[in-house]
């Protein structure tokens, strides 16, 4: 009898595991687009992904009904992290109530999570244990405060747990406790800012200005969003909104020209943006703490736009059409000013259109999109800054793909994907090339992934 049971278990689990690892798009699609003199290709670290099993979470003191929902959120977050083969949702009759290392070992699990959700005051405490199945031992134990399920922060407090598990195992940042801001074309033809959680839940509108309001960017602490809008003076201006209070301020509205493409410095002290139109066009920085003082960083008779800071804040990458309006390129220069280095693969006399740079929060990588062929397709590319465009990683191979933005794990990118079925937000794991749909069928623009929102205020009670 026991043998039959084990066979059934194996069969069920094989089905579960196999069904989760098929990428949405085949990354082995033919590589017909090429840039002369540039190595373009898949440089994925197609490494081993450990299997992580989840023992069904139990509940106590009122946590019974919510336990499986919390478990489900964590299981999906870990699957979306693209770091594990996740085994979950196994029938309790197969798994049993007690931790059985031998059973999980036979299934090939390397890690096992078990958890108990207990009612506590106006929320819950999740007591979580990470087991090393091979050694048959508890590796980590934590207690996490989970907000009441009616709270708007309920899901975010669970995502914080998922990121903690990634940190326990890999000692690297996760990206579950994060949101993505973007703009979307509304019925009246305007653009408004929207937000969505990293797992595709909680999609909602942030602004209702009935105007062209777009290109949101997050402050490093995740408390504020800056964006452009024409809502007050009929010209694009930079606004900064405090997400908790809804308070808003406009940045130096009297400075002539269009103000576009804002980006925070990593310490949150400065905001850099572009002024276009007129002789004073270029990238400027503005001191948010002193609430004054525009400092000119770069610029000329051309347009320098879309600044993005290196993680340590000493350099910026940006987009410039100094080689001609048909040849926008990506450059890197010191934030304090100086010479700009080209990092996109420009070859004199060749076509080349590279825009929308974003510097990874971890390491010297800049993602952008480029028109890599005469067919006019746009694809997501990643360049290593020191490499000066000699080697590029191409991450998309189908449709049109624009405006990449890095997740706080420095590994995933969200971008606007245009396919035959329409436009949406897609996520690609730069390590494995796996895709996932985040939001399908909406006319979305310029997404910006937040930093980790697992702040101490929301975080664990270890």
């Amino acid at each position: 009898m026991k043998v039959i049971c084990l066979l059934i278990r194996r069969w069920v689990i094989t089905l579960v595991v196999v069904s989760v690892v098929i990428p949405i798009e085949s990354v082995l699609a033919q590589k017909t687009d090429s840039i002369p003199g540039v190595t373009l290709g898949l440089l994925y670290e197609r490494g081993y992904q450990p299997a992580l099993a989840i023992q069904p979470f139990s509940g106590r003191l009122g946590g019974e009904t919510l336990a499986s929902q919390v478990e489900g959120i964590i299981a999906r977050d870990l699957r979306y992290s693209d770091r594990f083969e996740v085994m979950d949702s196994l029938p309790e009759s197969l798994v049993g109530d007690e931790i059985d290392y031998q059973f999980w070992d036979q299934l090939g699990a390397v890690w096992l999570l078990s958890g108990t959700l207990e009612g506590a005051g106006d929320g819950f405490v999740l007591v979580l244990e990470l087991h090393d199945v091979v050694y048959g031992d508890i590796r980590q134990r934590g207690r996490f405060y989970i907000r009441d399920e009616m709270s708007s922060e309920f899901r975010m407090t669970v995502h914080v747990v998922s990121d903690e598990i990634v940190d326990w195992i890999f000692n690297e940042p996760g990206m579950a406790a994060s949101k993505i801001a973007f703009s979307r074309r509304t019925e009246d033809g305007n653009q408004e800012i929207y937000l969505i959680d990293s797992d595709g839940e909680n999609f909602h509108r942030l602004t209702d200005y009935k105007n062209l309001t777009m290109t949101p960017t997050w402050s490093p602490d995740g408390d504020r969003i800056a964006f452009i809008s024409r809502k007050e003076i009929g010209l694009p201006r930079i606004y900064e909104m405090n997400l908790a209070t809804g308070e808003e301020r406009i940045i130096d509205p009297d400075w002539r020209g269009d103000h576009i493409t804002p980006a925070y410095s990593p310490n949150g002290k400065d905001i850099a943006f572009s002024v276009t139109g007129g002789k004073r066009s270029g990238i400027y920085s503005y001191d948010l703490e002193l609430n004054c003082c525009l400092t000119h960083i770069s610029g000329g008779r051309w347009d320098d736009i879309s600044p993005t800071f290196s993680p340590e804040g000493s350099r910026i990458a940006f987009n410039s059409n100094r080689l001609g309006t048909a040849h926008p390129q990506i450059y890197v220069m010191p934030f304090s000013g100086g010479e700009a280095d080209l990092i996109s693969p420009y070859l004199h006399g060749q076509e080349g259109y590279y825009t929308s740079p974003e510097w990874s929060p971890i390491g010297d990588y800049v993602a952008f999109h480029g028109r890599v062929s005469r067919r006019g397709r746009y694809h997501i590319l990643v360049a290593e800054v020191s490499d000066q465009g000699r080697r590029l990683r191409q991450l998309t191979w189908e449709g049109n793909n624009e405006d990449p933005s890095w997740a706080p794990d420095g590994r995933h990118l969200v971008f606007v994907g245009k396919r035959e079925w329409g436009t949406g937000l897609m996520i690609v794991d730069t390590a494995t090339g796996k895709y996932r749909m985040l939001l399908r069928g909406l006319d979305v623009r310029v997404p910006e992934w937040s930093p980790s929102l697992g702040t101490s205020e929301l975080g664990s009670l270890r």
Partner: protein
Amino acid sequence: MDDSLYIGEIFDMDTHRIGLGMRIKDLLVPGLAVALLISACAKDPAPPPAPTGPTAEEIAQQRAAAAAAEAAAAEAARLKAEQEAAERERVRRDRAIAEARSTLRELVNFDYDESAITDQAEQILRRKVPILRNSPSVQIRLEGHADERGSTEYNLALGSSRAESVREFLSGFGISGDRLTTTSFGEDRPLVSRSDENAWSRNRRVEFAITGGTIVP
């Protein structure tokens, strides 16, 4: 009692009632003549019963009245003609202003990814120059647009470059740059909401918004 009350009174022997001089009244024609006739008759204490026709004096008065009416009509016609001429002039001027406005507002298109002024755009811009010279108070906002292809952010810059090209062109003809401001809507305000070559070529444009001043045609 005033004498005039008796004028034209008729005493009816059968009914013993006094009626008004109906026959006299029947004969009276234009309103102006009535007053003249009544005042003339008033001098006659014993008016003849029921005059059979207008007297020479009455005819003269009627003629005078007709002449006065004619003169008044001629004056009215002259005024009307003057007004019509003024109206025609006003319409002509309005039309000239409207034409000038429409010339000023005629948009210019650009090649794909380019901000250079094309030959066709140059012809359109040259027609604006004399109007801008004649109308020194007119201020214009040059609004640059891009087609939907390419990146949202870069298209803001591209629209701005196009508006700058137009400003530089007009400045080259002596139109002060201070009268010309620029802004870019990027790809977000398409003229034609389709995704084909025709729509793209029409959406790559600079529009001219008159933001102040008086047009002198």
